[in-house]
């Protein structure tokens, strides 16, 4: 017997007698003996207090980002999490409900998706957006496969900037290998930015897409209008990847510069860092390509009385109908995370989002300014290149060593690029957000000085 199993022992006997059976085992007669077991080799049931202690112990064995000054980025960012986000997420009508296949009793979920799609569309500058994907890395994968499909599979090359997050590129490799798509990686110039001419050359007339990240892995803002032009000159689709979604509060989305796809990670919009998941991939494209777009889509319509209503639409692209010819094999999206982002963005409002993004930017500029005063053992790798809220810092040791030493001085100073090598020096990726107060910046600078 257990609280989560609805029938008590007598209930089960009662039902068995109604079915004319003596024991539950009879219901499992169709399972061959050879694959059956008497029971699992697992511990007994635990009460809630035991669970709280055991899970609490495991959680305490970690150092949370909130407990010390934290400057970690590289694809996952610490931003404010309004209390109302979690309050809304905790409503059972939202988190215990299923995919809204029965629209008449799912208008709450469906309207949220419609609002999310609209928010993403406005921020990216592209007219259509889907109901979300697993995360930023798989969003990039979907964008490349999408481009391949749009061009009817006639071009098997994808040009990807080296300054697209190295982990995203690793994930992309796993998928392109299976799909028979070749990936060509274009390194940045000495200023950490892409040269549109080199991109144009790499794309030639073979590329189905050119994928760039902005701000890029080094935190540097790319020349989006030129890069879109370079892609289009080659007959390829232009794809912008965004890993720090808050940047869209201050920087114009690629759609306004002609990008065909803007995709990436929206974890910054109210989704907990959660040790890497669940996060929130997003994908936006131009309306003419709507039928090739992967993922779920909510559309506006009416009910039989003419009242406005929403429902999932264009499901025929998806696996449960198209089966072998589906645009993707995605079934679940990240519904609850999309809800979190919608609540967060609507709480911020247009003005609040801009203010938050500007705050991140101002704090980053201030930290960079103070670092240049620290001394010769520390320098900013690309001092002339424009950044939003992240930059590469070089110090007197390898990135991995620096992070350990600064951590023992009470600062989570950044993500080392030691294991994420490329055409850039070994250092620390430092991210600054609205959560880093002036005191945090003081602590950072003091830690650097102690190490010089």
């Amino acid at each position, binding site marked *: 017997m257990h609280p989560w199993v609805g029938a008590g022992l007598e209930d089960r006997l009662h039902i068995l007698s109604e079915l004319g059976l003596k024991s539950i085992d009879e219901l499992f007669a169709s399972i061959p003996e050879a*694959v059956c077991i008497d029971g*699992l080799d697992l511990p*007994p049931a635990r009460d*809630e207090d035991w669970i709280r202690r055991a899970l609490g112990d495991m959680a305490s064995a970690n150092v949370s980002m909130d407990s010390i000054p934290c400057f970690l980025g590289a694809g996952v960012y610490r931003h404010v999490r309004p209390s109302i986000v979690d309050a809304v997420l905790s409503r059972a*009508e939202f988190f215990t409900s299923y995919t809204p296949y029965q629209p*008449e009793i799912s208008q709450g979920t469906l309207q949220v998706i419609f609002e999310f799609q609209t928010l993403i569309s406005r921020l990216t500058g592209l007219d259509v957006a889907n109901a979300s994907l697993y995360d930023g890395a798989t969003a990039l994968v979907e964008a490349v496969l999408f481009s391949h499909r749009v061009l009817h599979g006639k071009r098997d090359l994808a040009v990807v900037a080296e300054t697209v997050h190295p982990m995203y590129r690793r*994930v992309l490799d796993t998928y392109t290998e299976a799909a028979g798509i070749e990936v060509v990686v274009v390194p940045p110039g000495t200023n950490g930015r892409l040269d549109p001419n080199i991109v144009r050359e790499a794309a030639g007339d073979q590329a189905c897409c050119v994928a760039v990240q902005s701000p890029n892995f080094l935190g540097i803002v790319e020349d989006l209008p030129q890069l879109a032009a370079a892609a289009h000159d080659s007959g390829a689709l232009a794809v912008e990847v965004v890993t720090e979604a808050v940047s869209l509060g201050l920087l114009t989305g690629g759609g306004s510069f002609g990008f065909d796809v803007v995709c990436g990670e929206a974890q910054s919009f109210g989704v907990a860092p959660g040790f890497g998941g*669940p996060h929130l991939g997003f994908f936006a494209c131009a309306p003419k390509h709507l039928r090739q777009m992967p993922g779920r889509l909510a559309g506006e319509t009416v009910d039989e009385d003419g009242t406005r209503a929403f429902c999932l639409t264009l499901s025929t692209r998806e696996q449960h109908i198209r089966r072998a010819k589906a645009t993707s094999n*995605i079934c679940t999206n990240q519904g609850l995370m999309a809800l979190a982002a919608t609540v967060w963005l609507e709480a911020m409002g247009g003005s609040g989002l801009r203010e938050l993004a500007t705050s991140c930017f101002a704090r980053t500029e201030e930290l960079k300014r103070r670092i240049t005063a620290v001394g010769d053992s520390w320098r900013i790798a690309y001092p002339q290149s424009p950044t939003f809220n992240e930059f590469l810092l070089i110090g007197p040791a390898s990135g991995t060593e620096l992070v350990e030493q600064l951590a023992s001085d009470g600062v989570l100073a950044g993500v080392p690029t030691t294991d994420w090598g490329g055409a850039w020096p070994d250092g620390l990726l430092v991210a600054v957000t609205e959560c880093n107060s002036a005191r945090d910046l003081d602590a950072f600078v003091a830690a650097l000085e102690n190490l010089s």
Partner: protein
Amino acid sequence: MKRRAIRSEPLFFERNPRRVRRQGYLLPALDVPEVEPSEVLPPELVREPDPHFPDISEMEVVQHFHRLSQLNYAVDEGLYPLGSCTMKYNPRINEETARLPGFASLHPLQPQAQIQGALRLIWELEESLKTITGMPGATLQPAAGAHGEFTGILMIRKALATRGEKRDVVLAPDSAHGTNPATATFAGYRAQEIPSAEDGTVDLGALDRMMDETVAALMLTVPNTLGLFEHQILEIADLVHSRGGFIYMDGANLNSFVGRALPGLMGADAMHINLHKTFSTPHGGGGPGAGPVTVSEALLPHLPVPKVIRGNDGFELQWNDPASIGQMRGFYGNFLILVRALTYIWSLGAEGLRSTSDVAVLYANLVRHRLKGAYHLKFDAPSLHEVVFDDSIQTRYEVRNVDIAKRLLDYGFHPPTMSFPLVVHGALMIEPAESVAPEEVEAFCDAMLAIAKEAETDPGLVRSAPHDTPVGRVDEVRAARNLKVTWTPEDEGA
């Protein structure tokens, strides 16, 4: 029937129509000098303020989402008998453990010494799933079941490549969930359908004819989507293995035999598990889920990276392994979902897990017993945790499964899965799961029987359902023909 007034809720973009500046959240005060962005950033890249992205106050946000939530039916409200979805209770203790700051506020790239608890949790869940399935390896990376399927098929592909073989075909039964053939195609294989025998299970003769050296794998759901156990599973596995192929098992229906049988003994080489089905993590209105994959010895070397390794000094992440298929998504998995699943498994324990499948199967057979006769049962063989009826009796009165589903909404229940599996026309796939009280299952059966009567005596009532929902039957054709997927400023004039 009790009612209460529910106002229809405007879109966020329709609120605050005069676009007055309000505040929904107070940001931390700016304690550093202000900087004008266009003095530092290329000015053409700096965004212009968007007049159509309004500001609303905190209470407005709360009321907006509160009212929207009231338009939804949810598991907490009542039975959600969706076949193949396993809509069980989402325990609240899961929500507590997933929100512990040591889990929720953890960055995946923090130094190894700072994340030992998280790595330990991953390792513990892997071990638990290995025990539950009787298989020697596991990965928790995949974000959902379909993602797990793709991971499994890629591992099979890699194993074949390591053997120096390249096969082109993947077999799946005609009753399979659409993700199966979609996954196969996505992985570069040709998906071929294998017909079901008369009793609804895999036709062994057909398998014998189709299984040759061009076939990489057979994808099987066990029990299948009709709720029928593949009683010839050992013969099937032997046949496929003896001809150099692999068995991929779709674990969507694990709730029917968890604690009672082991996929590892059935010959499974890779099996995905839907944590949001069998292991109680919430459906969230469409995700996030998680689709861990357990594997046999043969596929062990090819698990995705990074892997969690337990050493003498603690846990570490191993990123490099040439035999691995690579990385399947960012970071390590839907970690906060994994926390919930481990909480569930540890809470239930060995006996608790076994009793879930006991009662899940008991309830489904109760439904079968009560509805048989009133609804048509195409495959009469004993079924486990779900039962598939169809509408062929009701269609005599021109009432179809869609109408029955919509009428059920008026009785306060979520409808069963419809029109799937494809081998049953007009299907109604019912899976009660084990969480609800017996009275709830009986009430559902009462409602279904009442509707069967209505179909005979008052079919118009059923065909025009639903009558008691926030909106009436939604025009899905219009949604597809006149595609409108975002609000636009032009709507403001209307």
